[in-house]
Structure formats: C-alpha cells, structure tokens
C-alpha cells in the first residue's frame, strides 16, 4: 500500500499444506535492496526458488551497473522471468513495492505468468486476495503518514486473513520511508 513518500508491504506467516499448518513463521516478504521489497504468495517451493533467482539477477545487475535496480525495472525483470515459464509456470503471485526516483513510491502485482498490474493505491495477492481487496478499498486513504499507514495495513491484513482458513497465524508488516525501515510482527488470531 502506498502512503505519503512511503510504502508498506505486509504478509501473513503461515506455511501450510492444504489443511495442515506446518509453521507459523514463514517468510514471504523479501528484501531486494533497501528501497525495494517483493512479497511472494503461492506455492512455497516456487516462492523460495523465485526469490533465489531474483536475488541472483539483482546481484549481477549491481555488479554490472554499480547501482541498485529501480522498482520499475525490477518489476519488468520479474514479469520476464515469470513469462519465460509460460507453459510450466511458477505458482507464485508477486507483489512488488519500492521507492523509485525521487523516493516516489511504486507498487505493482502480477499473476503467475507475469501480467503486470500497476496501481497508485494498493495491490494484493494470495488466497485471501478478494477479502484483501475489499478491506484495503474501504480502509485506504491517499497520502497517509507512515504510522497511519502501518495501522491501516495491519487492520486490513488481519481483517482479511481472519476470513480465510488458509491464511493467518500472525502478520508481518514492513513500512519503508526514504530514511528508515520499520518491521513489525503482529500477533493476530492464531487459527
């Protein structure tokens, strides 16, 4: 979700196999660089494989270009990587959030074959995506300060995952401004 010169990216923490919960501390939001984060929902093995491939590509980029990737460029990279596997896809839906030129917030989401969807306010993915759309739409206001953005994102996340049996078991929220990064773990309904 986009705020005033900042963004927030959040996820739940469940790792499960259909009805069975395996772990409640699974990491789904990953750092690419200080001002670029990617959240990956979907099949856990593909989340991990895709993250490793993306970090590899970004590190190569850093070596060659001697700078960090812009969020728009990174989104195009993810889209290309996913479309390469068009007929045998990674079962992941990424959510990309970053601060671009002049610290302008950038967010986008994609489906599992790389169809980019840019937005100015918020993007969602996962099993609870429909709930998330509803919760974010009703709670979002433009130009929120980081503290208010954190509250909004946490409430929207909790409200949505509580309606989805496959999501939840805690929340992880990251708020990034040009000067600092705040991460917080939220304890919600542990069911």
């Amino acid at each position: 979700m986009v705020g005033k010169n900042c963004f927030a990216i959040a996820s739940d923490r469940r790792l499960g196999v259909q009805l069975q919960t395996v772990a409640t501390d699974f990491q789904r939001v990953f750092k690419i660089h200080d001002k670029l984060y990617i959240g990956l929902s979907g099949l856990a093995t593909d989340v991990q494989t895709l993250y490793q491939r993306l970090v590899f590509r970004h590190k190569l980029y850093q070596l060659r270009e001697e700078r960090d990737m812009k969020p728009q460029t990174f989104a195009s990279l993810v889209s290309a990587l996913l479309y390469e596997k068009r007929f045998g896809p990674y079962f992941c839906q990424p959510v990309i959030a970053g601060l671009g030129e002049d610290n302008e917030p950038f967010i986008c989401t994609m489906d599992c074959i790389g169809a980019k969807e840019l937005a100015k306010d918020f993007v969602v993915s996962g099993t609870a995506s429909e709930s998330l759309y509803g919760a974010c739409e009703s709670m979002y206001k433009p130009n929120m300060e980081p503290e208010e953005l954190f509250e909004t994102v946490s409430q929207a996340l909790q409200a949505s995952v509580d309606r989805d049996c496959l999501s939840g078991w805690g929340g992880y929220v990251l708020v990034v401004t040009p000067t600092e990064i705040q991460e917080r773990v939220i304890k919600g309904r542990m069911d």
Partner: protein
Amino acid sequence: MECVLGVVGRDFAVVAADTSAVQSILVHKSDEDKVMVLDSHKLMGASGEPGDRVQFTEYIQKNLHLYQFRNNIPLSTAATANFTRGELATALRKNPYSVNILLAGYDADVGASLYYIDYIATFHKIEKGAFGYGAYFCLSLMDKLYRPDMSVEEAVDLVDKCIKEIRLRLVVAPQKFIIKIVDKDGAREYARRAYTDSPSEAATVTA
C-alpha cells in the same frame, strides 16, 4: 502410512521414523531403517516412495562425503539442508523425487537444528515437525507438550507419546519405530520401539 517425526531439544535433535517397508497390502519387512546417518553429526529421516527415498538419501550422503574429502571440513547442517533443497528443486520440474525429509544436525557454533524439506522442495527451519498420516496426530501433541530446551528424556518421552498416539489412532498403524539422536557427541541410534514395549497398551487396545 509412513511416519517421520523430529524434535529439537537443548543442544540435541531427535528424529524418529517407523520401520515398516510396505507395498500395498504386503509388509516386506518391519526393520527398515529410514533415518539415515549422513555423517558424524547429521541425520536425515526420510519418507516416501521407497526407491526414491533410498536413492535420494544415499545421493545426499555421498555428496556430503565428497565435499568433506575435497575440502577437508564437513558441510554445516544449514548448508546441507539448502543443498538437499536445491537438488529436490532442480529435479522437481524434470524428474521429481517423492521424498519428504526431516534433516537434523548439530553444529558447534549454532547448536542443534531441524529442517523440514518436503517432496516439492519447500524448505523451512523448524523446532518440531512430522510427515505422513502420523503428522495429523503428532503435530498437535507436539504443539501442546513441546517446550524449547527440553532434556533428552523429556524429548524422547514426547516422541514416545507421539508413537503411542499413532499406534492407537491410525488405522494400519506401523508398530515398530526407530529413534535416532544427534548431539555434540555425534549422530547415533538411540532406541527402537516395538509393540511389546508397553504391555499396558496391549490391554487398552484389546479391551
């Protein structure tokens, strides 16, 4: 109906597995060791397709030994787990292995650790875990009774309670189990459990 379970205690980890080798309605043998000792301080409990299980665990074991021969130091548990995950992930979209793995190890700097690696290469570091139908009974037992920093006796007692529950509640439950432990002194077999171990159970079941 194969079950593998693992628990991390204070500077040790325990992995238990059933010892039945079953094909459809036939029990080929009931003393099959499914917890492979990878090297001096690592255990790999595996369940799944029998051919894949033996092939894959031996493959990991031999590669581990090769690394040690080439580099004169053993691979750490975390690195081993990531290597295992990488092999499963690479094979996944070509020639997948149907093996679920609980990898336990002891490193001097990190202590004991347990990794959950399922057949589609989902990788996670855990304190307690289980695979198979037995997991449906064990996981909640472990959630209730597990505490961090348990002693060996407490951890094995928890494993015994899980085994008892599996025997009692799982239809066609495996009766015999093997329990292996890994700590600073190495990876070794700790105990075997057979049906005759607890006569009081027999009374409960037949009553």
